[in-house]
């Protein structure tokens, strides 16, 4: 019944959005209103889709992603490319919030006993994936016409940069699944720590590999080099610490409407970040880590204060990510994309096994860790888009393959991770609404 109601509501809001869109000629949009319409439609529709996903025991995130994909430009086109572009700032703010929540969950004192496991698994998986994916993409570069004519050095540079992108993880998806399922336990902690730490390393390594690739391909769009990179990383960390200090002071001295302040700060980070080259992910993560590990305020306080705004943030972020998937481009490069996804998965499973043996992690937990490392989204997409834009003409072809591979992991990853959490017994049982209400009534009686 719940699913039927959700689907009917979905139909209703879709009809309204479609009717509104029919007001203007095809392709035209209204700045501001288009973004507001897309924002409202995606939040409402994504939540209805998440109910349907819940009914078949899939994570809500899959519902959000599917919603964006179905109603985005690739399929029904209710949300247009222009609307998605207008939502970029909301997306940036959402990334910052997701990262902040991740940082607030990472307590170094608690993680100390697992530090060995985190570093062993992170290093093993990232290193092995780099080797396997570089080999695979060297083969792809030798097969695809646009790069087949390059020399060995050229194809190697292409392979290294592509391997770097596909090796990325998704802290946003992992945290999203953990938050919605309220999972608690060694598997969720381990997966979250690994994806955050390893993704940071991946971003830093990308800056180095792209600099290397630019030296091989002089026609590539030139970035500012190491100086800009240092400013980008350390600037983001500095701003993150400043935000952490402001938040800690605010929570201690004022304490009301903290969620709004968090949102305002992250909005500023996303807006200023465009001109100051700040990364909202790194800003949010640093602020969260600072709050949880350095400041007198606990991360839990921030998590509690932002609890209410987390759901719409996750819904809109993942729906937008889903809407950005290009079906036609994916179908065009599907075989290569599937191969890349399979190679990555192999690297993750073998790498984790090696890391588990080195660190002496419980086998039952270790067996399930790769499922938490499978999902990909924000960072990987951002890096793929960088390849697409910065390395014409081969970047366009290889970038599409990278995005295709990310699509596979994006759609399958959250589902598998949810099953892994359920298998590990870390998902907290949530009573259905009627059940909860009747138990409350019994308590009152």
């Amino acid at each position: 019944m719940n699913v039927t109601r959700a689907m009917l509501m979905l139909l209703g809001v879709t009809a309204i959005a479609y009717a509104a869109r029919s007001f203007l000629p095809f392709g035209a949009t209204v700045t501001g209103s288009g973004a507001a319409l897309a924002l409202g439609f995606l939040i409402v529709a994504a939540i209805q889709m998440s109910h349907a996903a819940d009914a078949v025991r899939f994570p809500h995130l899959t519902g959000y992603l599917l919603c964006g994909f179905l109603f985005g430009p690739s399929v029904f086109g209710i949300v247009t490319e222009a609307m998605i572009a207008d939502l970029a700032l909301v997306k940036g703010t959402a990334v910052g919030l997701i990262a902040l929540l991740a940082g607030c969950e990472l307590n170094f004192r608690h993680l100390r006993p697992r530090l060995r496991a985190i570093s062993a698994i992170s290093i093993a998986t990232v290193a092995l994936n780099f080797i396997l994916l570089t080999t695979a993409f060297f083969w792809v570069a030798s097969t695809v016409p646009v790069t087949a004519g390059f020399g060995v050095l050229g194809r190697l540079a292409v392979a290294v940069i592509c391997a770097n992108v596909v090796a990325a993880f998704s802290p946003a998806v992992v945290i999203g699944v953990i938050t919605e399922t309220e999972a608690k336990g060694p598997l969720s902690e381990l997966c979250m720590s690994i994806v955050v730490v390893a993704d940071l390393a991946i971003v830093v390594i990308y800056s180095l590999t792209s600099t290397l690739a630019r030296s091989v391909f002089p026609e590539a769009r030139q970035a500012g080099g190491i100086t800009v990179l240092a400013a980008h990383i350390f600037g983001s960390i500095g701003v993150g610490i400043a935000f952490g200090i402001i938040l800690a002071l605010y929570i201690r001295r004022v304490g009301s409407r903290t969620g709004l302040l968090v949102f305002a700060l992250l909005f500023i980070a996303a807006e200023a970040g465009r001109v100051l080259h700040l990364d909202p992910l790194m800003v949010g993560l640093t602020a969260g880590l600072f709050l949880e590990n350095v400041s007198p305020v606990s991360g839990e306080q921030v998590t509690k204060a932002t609890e209410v705004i987390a759901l719409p943030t996750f819904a809109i972020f993942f729906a937008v990510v889903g809407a950005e998937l290009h079906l036609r481009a994916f179908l065009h490069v599907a075989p290569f994309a599937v191969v890349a996804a399979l190679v990555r998965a192999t690297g993750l499973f073998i790498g984790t096994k090696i890391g588990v043996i080195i660190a002496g992690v419980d086998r039952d937990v270790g067996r399930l860790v790769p499922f938490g490392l499978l999902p990909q989204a924000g960072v990987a997409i951002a890096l793929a888009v960088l390849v697409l834009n910065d390395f014409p003409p081969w970047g366009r072809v290889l970038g599409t393959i990278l995005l295709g591979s990310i699509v596979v992991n994006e759609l399958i990853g959250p589902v598998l991770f949810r099953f892994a959490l359920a298998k590990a017994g870390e998902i907290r049982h949530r009573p259905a609404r009627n059940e909860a209400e009747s138990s409350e009534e019994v308590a009152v009686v």
Partner: protein
Amino acid sequence: MPAEQIARVVIALAAAVMLAIAAAHPSVRRLEQRFGLSVLAASGFPLLALGYAFRAFGVVTEQTLSDLRPVYEFGLGWIGLAVGMQLNVRRLDELPPSFTTTLALMTLPATLLAAVSCALLLSGLGLIYGSGLLRDVLVLAACAAVSAPANLRLLLRHGPPRAMQLVSAITQVDQVAAFAILALVASMFRPQATVLWRLPRSGWFIVTLGVGFLLGVIIYLLLRNVRSRAEEFSLLIGGVALAAGTAGYLALSVPVVCALAGAVLANVPYHDRARLEATLGDFERPMYLLFLFLVGTTWRPLEWQGWVLGIVFAASRGYGKLIGARAAVRLAAADLPAARNLTLALLPESAVAIVVIFSLATLDPAPIPAIAWGINAVIVGSVLTEIYVQAMQRREARSVGEETGRFVTHFV
């Protein structure tokens, strides 16, 4: 971007955050109460000035304002929904029969006087009929209608017991009257654009009503079976954004459509209305503060016409309220206090006036100077009225020997 500009952006954004934190600090609120100031004068005015300074120094650029457009459309929708939620017919049924007469008398003379005097002045300033004069005058008239309650405990202390209830209800329902005028203006003076729907102007009024009602029903159905508070909040945000986006897309007035949706929500059975109202109210003050910041970016305080218009607007509105109060007291003396006190109680301008005038500016893709003067007039009028009411209240307080610091005026 040059290093100098980057430094300016960082310092300015830091200043904005600090100001927002200061505005939310309990000691600032205590100060507001101590001096009996409204939020507009205490926390709101610095944000208004900040918006102006940001625009003047190039910190807030066209790009930033364009990025913020979804935010303020959403804000307009949120405020509209909150206003509409106040139109609960069951609560209105409980009011005495003199309510309708009092409401009409406290609203119409002020509206008419403000409209006529502002029309004369704007004509004198060179604005001619057909170039937006009627539209701007109607919106200024709508702004003249809305009131925020002053210190009712002090001003109505000798009034009949039902006076407080009546005056509070008037401050809620006069906002609806202002929104009705806005709906009319938005339908009759639609901007010309390349669109696929061709309707007569009166048809757009019907569309506004229909879209507002439909979205109200949709939001209600969405909220009816929520599983948690987070889901309720998310769907409320989504519903408001959907309503605001749909209205904006069809070039209808965003606050009007959302107010209609809010009125639907207010009159249907809902399992936890108090929580819903609390959620709406929780974000209302930040939304107004954000508005004042945005209004600041379009404010033109250096144009003398705006100041003159502000003085004329405030004076005609105040005089209209006084005439209305005298007539109302004559007709329903049993339910009302003395005419002077009734005027003072309903004289402060509601922040909804700023929302109304600002939403006119968003409707017009190429705003003419008169809208900027209108914004200035509403701001100046609000400040002048505030000063006058504060002075009168203090005099009243001294006459009864009470501590003035305890007399607080409300923002909305």
